[in-house]
């Protein structure tokens, strides 16, 4: 006698369901958003958040937490708006160096068995400091090709939707379907078992941190492509948004239980929640609280589903 609906399926569908409800509410409040132009404006700032959330997801997947992703995205945005524009070779080298440092952090955290929260919290100030050195006053200019990509208006489907789908599919295939992806997730699930099976935990952590660094660098570039110029503080909120996005998208803090598609949807839900509240013309003093309330409602629904799952 199974339940009528499989709780596992329900759990996987919850993020998509929340997104659909929110989108419907926005369409109802503000019919202008239902157009190509409207969707583009509504969702384009979600692309960097989606990428930052994917970066956070890689870290959460190995049971760590990254408190530096916001300032890291700010730094890569500053690099993209300065060196990548003036001297593309230097810019690419600098971004590659950032990714290497991220990979190194993964190694450091694993070898010295340090709490990732402490290391990344410390690094957040390092990233911010370097960002201020790269770009002391707000400014810089987005490379032409980056601006072109981010403002690209393909026919029929707005670019933010295409970008989100591509990101979700690529990461999903790599992490959920590929054999090595299963090993990487296993590090978060049962590290000892993975190690006994002969896989290097160090290598897995380094790869996950490097992937996070790459996704974070893309987030910074996407952000600059949208804003046209950078600011050392431009993406500081992304740290908490990305964590919320992963959890909202069905991920768990421990156990290697993450979902790339869910993370993308979670990030978009968070972006839309802010728009929804602004369309409601809610007093700004209440908006942060209301945003929190939306999060709590979704997570409460998940707890209910988890209970149902546990009962089976």
């Amino acid at each position, binding site marked *: 006698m199974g339940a009528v609906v499989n709780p596992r399926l329900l759990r996987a569908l919850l993020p998509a369901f929340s997104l659909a409800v929110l989108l419907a509410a926005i369409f109802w409040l*503000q019919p*202008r*958003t239902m157009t190509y*132009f*409207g969707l583009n*404006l*509504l969702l*384009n*700032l979600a692309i*960097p958040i989606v990428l930052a959330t994917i970066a956070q997801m890689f870290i959460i997947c190995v049971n760590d937490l990254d408190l530096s992703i916001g300032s890291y995205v700010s730094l890569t945005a500053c690099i993209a708006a300065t060196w990548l524009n003036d001297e593309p070779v230097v810019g690419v080298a600098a971004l590659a160096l950032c990714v290497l440092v991220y990979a190194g952090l993964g190694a450091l955290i694993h070898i010295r068995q340090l709490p990732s929260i402490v290391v990344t919290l410390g690094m957040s100030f390092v990233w911010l400091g370097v960002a201020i050195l790269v770009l002391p*006053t*707000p*400014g*810089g200019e987005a490379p032409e090709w980056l601006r072109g990509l981010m403002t690209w208006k393909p026919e029929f489907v707005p670019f933010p939707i295409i970008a989100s789908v591509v990101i979700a599919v690529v990461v999903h295939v790599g992490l959920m379907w590929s054999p090595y992806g299963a090993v990487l997730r296993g590090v978060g699930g049962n590290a000892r078992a993975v190690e006994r099976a002969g896989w290097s935990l160090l290598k897995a952590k380094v790869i996950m941190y490097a992937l996070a660094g790459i996704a974070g660098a893309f987030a910074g570039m996407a*952000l600059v*492509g*949208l*804003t*046209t*110029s*950078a*600011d050392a*503080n*431009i*993406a*500081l*909120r*992304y740290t908490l948004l990305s964590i919320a996005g992963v959890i909202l998208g069905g991920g768990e803090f421990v156990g290697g239980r993450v979902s790339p598609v869910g993370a993308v949807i979670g990030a978009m839900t968070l*972006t839309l929640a*802010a*728009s929804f509240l*602004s*369309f409601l*013309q809610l007093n*700004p*003093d209440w*908006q*942060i609280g209301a*945003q929190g309330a939306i999060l709590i409602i979704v997570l409460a629904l998940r707890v209910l589903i988890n209970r149902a799952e546990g009962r089976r």
Partner: protein
Amino acid sequence: MTKTALVAGTALAALVMFAAPSMAQEDTSDKRIALSNNYAGNSWRQAMLTSWARVTEPAVADGVVAAADAFTTAENQVTEQAAQIQNLILQGYDAIVLNAASPEGLNGAVKEACDAGVIVVSFDGIVTEPCAWRIAVDFYQMGYDEVVYLAEKLPEGGNLLEIRGLAGVFVDDEISRGIHDAVADYPQFTIVGSVHGDWAQDVAQQAVAGILPSLPDIVAVVTQGGDGYGAAQAFAATDREMPIIIMGNRHDELTWWAEQKAANGYETMSVSIAPGVSTLAFWVAQQILAGQDVPKDLVVPFLRIDQDNLEESLANTEPGGVANVEYTLEDAQAVIAAGRQ
């Protein structure tokens, strides 16, 4: 009877005179204007929002515009304000009046607005995107004017103490540059000391108290606002004669000045930017919507308080607040006319 007719006639003539320049204006009664504000956490910003409401509510009631809603982002963050601007475009506003979190970081969103045919008027925190209008503060001139005033008051010159703002902030550099350039033009003055008061009375008081023992006689203190009262306290604690301290329109500064004026005829002046500049931006946006030719770069007039209008200004300033003025359509037209030259 004839007198009433005369009064009515004069009123009518005045009405025609006022109405004349607006004859060519298009109707804006169906236009909607939004205020996008990045921060509301200090008394200046609170006064700015209050002024906005006080001026736009009658304007909406009179049918000048259809709506003038204020939006403040919950967190003072660039990405959040960029999203807010994009939402305002989607909500179909015809103009966005903007106090920006970053001069550069919002350019992408501002460009989106311009491309969608939305008028963007930035003020105070201005944006560099060329398609937007800017109502900027000439901080350089503010610093320069302080020394010009002192040159009138103290023709023989003397030693000056400079209190600066927060190090590394553009506003501080500009005001200080104005002061130093003016001192170069009025060589009877010498700046003998310079401290950072961070635009806060307590910081300024400590900084001034710390440097005073090492300084010769001071005839005047040039300031940046928010630091005059602290400087006065530091001087009062010594046996030095009270110099002319330029004030910055804060309530505590004006109160102290009024007390001194009553007690011993103390003279100075006070200058700052009125938070009501948001209402100037509102009228400028309305004028652009009305089809007027408005230059992209406009300059905010300072709010200056002198010896004779001190009591009146103080009475209109809330305790803990800053002296304010709300602008009218005519003020905006004057600023626009000045910008055209």
